[in-house]
């Protein structure tokens, strides 16, 4: 991103962001509520376009693709940049159909091709062993943690390059959270991952780089280890230590 700002009508939500997200690494966005971290996350696949009155200035790139150029096809962009939301949102369909859904939309029809792709995506989301005998049961019967991994499988099935995770563990119990974090560590081998989290320990545990944001501005981007042990900016120090004044 270069000098990227985003406005909701006259309200500026992101202020002149310069950021390079490292490839095949996990980058965490942290900051207090309302700082713009989810807004920034949604810029990477133009999910903010769905909100009336949104306009931007500056540039955002995915490799050579100018994300906000008029000629950019948003559906293609969103296939390249997948997203997982705060609450697991499986479709009210079978486990199999949830994962196959995006592929069917892309026109994939052959049963064996779909079977292979579903298995590969479920394995990639560390869910295959738990659901291989109930692929045609409703996805709504899975636990919260399993549903969230199913949603990850659905996202990776269409072969994205980037995965955006918006507080993906906030509704999960501690063990499911750790399992999801383990999965995220695996995912970075194949995908570039950007995650929004309110949980600083989670950011410290699983990310390689961390951005601290405040009032729409990017205060510090640093290697996670440095940001949590010796941040460059006093504002970051105050936030990660929980101090003020």
């Amino acid at each position, binding site marked *: 991103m270069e000098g990227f700002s985003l406005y909701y009508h006259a309200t500026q939500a992101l202020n002149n962001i310069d950021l390079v997200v490292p490839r095949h690494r996990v980058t965490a966005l942290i900051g207090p509520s309302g700082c713009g971290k989810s807004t920034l996350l949604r810029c990477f696949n133009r999910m903010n376009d769905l909100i009336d009155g949104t306009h931007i200035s500056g540039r955002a790139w995915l490799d050579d693709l100018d994300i906000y150029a008029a000629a950019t096809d948003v559906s293609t962009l969103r296939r390249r940049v997948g997203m997982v939301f705060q609450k697991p949102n499986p479709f009210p369909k079978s486990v199999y159909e949830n994962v196959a859904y995006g592929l069917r939309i892309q026109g994939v029809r052959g049963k064996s091709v779909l079977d292979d792709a579903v298995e590969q995506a479920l394995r990639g989301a560390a869910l295959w062993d738990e659901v291989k005998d109930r692929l045609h049961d409703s996805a709504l019967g899975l636990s919260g943690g399993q549903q969230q991994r199913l949603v990850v499988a659905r996202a990776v099935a269409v072969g994205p390059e980037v995965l955006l995770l918006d507080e993906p563990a906030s509704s999960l119990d501690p063990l499911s959270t750790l399992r999801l974090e383990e999965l995220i560590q695996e995912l970075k081998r194949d995908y570039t991952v950007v995650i929004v989290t309110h949980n600083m320990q989670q950011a410290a545990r699983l990310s390689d780089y961390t951005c601290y944001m405040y009032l729409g501005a990017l205060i510090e981007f640093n290697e996670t280890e440095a940001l949590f042990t010796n941040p460059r900016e006093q504002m970051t*120090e105050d936030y990660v*230590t929980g*101090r*003020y004044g």
Partner: protein
Amino acid sequence: MLSTHISSGFDTDLNKVFSAVLAMGGLVEEQLGVALGLLLSPDPTVVSRVLEGERQINTLEVSLDQQCLAFIARHHPAAGDLRLILVLIKVINDLERIADEAEKVAKLSGGLDLKRVQGIISMGALVQGMTHDVMAALGGLDTDAAFTIAAREPESDRLRNRMQKQFAAEEDMLDYIWVIRALERIADHVRNICEYIVYCTEGKDVRHTDIEHIKR
């Protein structure tokens, strides 16, 4: 000294550990003062008191380490707070080692004739002053003071070398050498604490670096 944490329990627990480490420093200073006093006025009763004090300090070391671990487990400190608690754990270790060296001095005090060796008293005063000053610097997390105190450590090496040369031609000086080494080790531990203070306040690990280089 520390700005206010959003959780008052965090501040309460951190200040409690910090104060306890400073209090341990006070006990260690006292042990060292008594041990150095024994060089001038040997007294077996006072030596026993130093040995008892050393046992108390050992117990305190274990208890304070446990408090630091509990703080980390409970509060997950980060950045400056994480560096502080890490530094306190290391300071506890160095303080306990200073107390060990003071115990050695006390145990050897009965057999020394200070008239034979010029410099032991000066060296004792030097390390005692450094120990006192470093605890004050730790209490205030005072980087400048830490640099100043660390710069005094080479003087202990100089005094040790001078005295060891003096002993070269003499016999039966082993106890004197042990005392001088103990004092020199105390100066080393004080320097370690100075380095921890710099790490805590500046986030720079300056171990194994010379003072002039550190300042740059």
